[in-house]
C-alpha cells in the first residue's frame, strides 16, 4: 500500500495554514492585530498592486487566525470563545484613571476594626399580610407604628400624647441625622482633599496656606496669646493679634454677679473628689478594705474564691 500520496496531501494541508516570513510576524492577539515588519517587495508591488496587498494581508491574517484558534477556549451559545491575553500594544486612555472615593467616617472605622460589610435585605416577611414588604420606603415596615389602629400608651404619658405622631417624629429625626452625617462626611472629604484642581491634586500654595493657618491658631492659643513663646528662626510676627481686656468700669450689677460666680466656684468640691467619696459619710473606705482583703486582686477574684470554696465542699 502506497501512503506517500496521503502523506503529501497532509503535508500540503499543513503548508496551507503555516506562514513563512523572513522576519517573523509580530502578533498582538489581545488587540487582534498583526504587524508584518518585512520590507515591501518592490517588484510585485509595482506589477500588480491589489494582488500583492491581498497576498500580504492573507499571510498576516492566516498567522493571526492560527494564533487565535490555538488560544484556550470556553464554549458559549454562539460558538467557542477564545480567551485573549492582555494586549501587548499600549494605547492611550480616553479618560484619566478613576480616583478612589474618599472613605466615610464609618468606613474608616470599620476598616480599622476589620468589620466586613454586610448586605442587608431590603425586604422583610410580614406575618400578618403573609408577603414580603419593604423595610423602608413605599409601604415600608418602618411606618407600621404610625398607621396601626391601636397603640399602647405609656402610663406616664401626657394627656395630649399622640403615639403615631411621636413615632413619625422619631423616624424623621433618624432621617435628618443620617443626612447630617452625610453632609459631614462630604465636608470631611473636601477638607482632607482641599479643593483639588483639574489634575486632581491640592495645589501647593493652598496646602501652605492651610499649614500657616493652623500654626497661627496654635500660636495664639496660650493665655498670653503667644507673647512669651519662644520664637523660631524665620518665624513671622503675627499681625492683628491683640489681647482683649474687660472694661475697667462696669455696672455694679455685673461686677457683683461675676464676683459671686467666682466665690461659688471656690466653695465647691472638685468633681473628681466627689465621685470618690460617693459612698457618703461612712467611716469605712470600702475600696481600701477590698484592696487589703483581696491582696490587690479586686472584688471579682474575692467573690470567686469564696464561691469556689463552697462548691468544693458540696462535691
Amino acid at each position, binding site marked *: 500500500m502506497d501512503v506517500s500520496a496521503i502523506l503529501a496531501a497532509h503535508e500540503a494541508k499543513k503548508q496551507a495554514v503555516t506562514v513563512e516570513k523572513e522576519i517573523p510576524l509580530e502578533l498582538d492577539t489581545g*488587540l487582534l492585530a498583526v504587524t508584518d515588519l518585512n520590507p515591501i517587495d518592490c517588484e510585485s508591488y509595482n506589477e500588480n498592486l491589489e494582488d500583492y496587498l491581498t497576498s500580504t494581508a492573507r499571510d498576516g491574517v492566516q498567522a493571526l487566525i492560527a494564533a487565535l484558534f490555538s488560544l484556550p477556549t470556553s464554549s458559549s451559545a454562539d460558538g467557542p470563545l477564545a480567551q485573549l491575553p492582555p494586549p501587548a500594544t499600549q494605547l492611550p486612555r480616553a479618560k484619566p484613571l478613576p480616583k478612589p472615593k474618599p472613605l466615610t467616617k464609618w468606613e474608616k472605622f470599620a476598616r480599622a476594626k476589620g468589620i466586613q460589610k454586610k448586605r442587608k435585605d431590603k425586604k422583610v416577611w410580614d406575618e400578618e399580610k403573609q408577603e414580603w414588604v419593604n423595610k423602608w420606603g413605599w409601604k415600608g415596615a418602618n411606618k407600621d407604628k404610625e398607621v396601626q389602629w391601636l397603640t399602647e400608651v405609656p402610663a406616664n404619658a401626657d394627656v395630649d400624647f399622640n403615639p403615631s405622631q411621636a413615632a413619625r417624629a422619631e423616624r424623621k429625626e433618624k432621617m435628618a441625622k443620617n443626612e447630617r452625617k452625610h453632609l459631614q462626611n462630604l465636608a470631611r472629604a473636601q477638607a482632607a482633599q482641599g479643593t483639588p484642581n483639574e489634575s486632581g491634586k491640592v495645589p501647593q500654595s493652598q496646602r501652605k496656606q492651610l499649614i500657616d493657618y493652623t500654626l497661627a491658631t496654635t500660636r495664639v492659643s496660650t493665655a498670653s496669646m503667644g507673647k512669651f513663646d519662644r520664637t523660631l528662626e524665620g518665624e513671622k510676627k503675627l499681625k492683628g493679634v491683640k489681647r482683649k481686656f474687660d472694661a475697667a468700669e462696669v455696672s455694679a450689677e455685673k461686677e457683683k454677679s461675676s464676683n459671686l460666680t467666682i466665690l461659688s466656684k471656690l466653695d465647691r468640691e472638685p468633681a473628681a473628689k466627689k465621685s470618690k467619696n460617693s459612698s457618703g459619710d461612712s467611716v469605712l473606705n470600702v475600696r481600701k478594705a477590698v484592696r487589703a482583703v483581696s491582696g490587690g486582686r479586686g472584688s471579682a477574684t474575692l467573690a470567686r474564691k469564696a464561691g469556689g470554696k463552697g462548691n468544693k465542699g458540696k462535691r
Partner: protein
Amino acid sequence: MLRTVKPKNARSKRALDAREPKEVEDARTAIFVKGSHSGEKVNNVMKDLMALKRPNAISFSKKNVVRPFEDASSLDFWSQKNDAGLFIVGQSTKKRPDGLVFVRMFDNRVLDMCEIGVEGYQAMSEFKTPKSTPGHKPLMHFASELFDTHPRFQQLKSMLMDFFNGEEIDSICLPGIEHVISVTLAPTPSSLNSATTRLDPSSSKNEDDTKSLPKIHIRTYTIKLLASGTRIPRVELVPMGPSLDLVLRRHQDPDAEVLKQAMRRPKLKKQDVEKGLGKKRKNMEVDEMGDLRGRIHVAKQDLGRLQTRKMKGLKAGQSEDVNMSDAEEDGRSTKRQKSG
C-alpha cells in the same frame, strides 16, 4: 467649558455615572465632522468609515467651520458634550484637497492629531461582495517596517488601532471574526531608509518631509475560513471595501506630560490577579473574606501498604497466613469491646 451638571433624577444620574472614568475603558466613540467644505469624495469616505465604526459613531450632518490644527476649542466642547474620544474631520481646500484629520482626545482635550489626504478611493458599494456585520470587531493587519521605526507611522498605527479596535476585551467569539482591515505602505523610499536612523528626532521637519513618505493603502476584506484538515482553518480574503490610498500630511504630537497621564494603567486588584485575569487557574479561588483558598484532590489511599502493628505473623513472607491474622484481630477487637 461646560458647567458641571448635578443630576436631578436617578436616570440622569445613571447617564452621568456612565460617563465617569472607568478602569477598563469602553471603545472610543468617534464623531464625524464635515469642515467648511468637504468634497463628495471625502463625504463618501467618511460614510464608509462610519459604516465600519458603527455603533460607536456619531455623524455631524451640518458643515462646521473648524480648523483642528489652529483652534481645537470646538473639538473639546463636542467631546465633552457627546462623550466622544475620537474625531474625524473631513475638509477639502485648494492647498490640501480631500483631507481627513484624525483627532484623538484625552480627558475631553486634544491629545494628538494626524492629517491624511485621500488620493484613491473605492466605495464599499462598488464591491459586490458580502459585507461584515456592524459591531463585529475587525482584525488589523499592518505591513511595513516603518510601523516600527518611523514616528509618523507609529502614530498612524496607534491611531488606526484606536479607531477600529481600541477596546480591550478578554475573550472573542471565534465564529464572529468576519473581516480584516489591512494597512500596507508603499515600498520604503531609499531616502527614508537611511534617514530614519540618522535624523530620527527631526523627522517632522517640514512639508518636503511628508512628500517623501510612502503612500498608505488601506484595504478591507471579509475572511473566508476553509477547512484545512487541521484545527486551524485556511484563510481566504475577499475584498469588501472601502479601499483607500492615502498620503500623510500635517500632524500634532501629544504633549509628553499629557501622554504620560494617558498611558497610566490601573493597578489591578489582587482578587482579579488571583483569578488569573481570565486565564485558567485551577483549584484556587479568593473567597469573600479575601483569603486565597485552594482545593486539593487526594488520590485514593492505598490501604494495603498501611503500616499496622508489627507482628511476626504479619511478615511479608507469610502471605498465606493473612486470613488467620485477620480473624485474630477481629477477635481482639470484640474482646476489647466487652471489657469497655
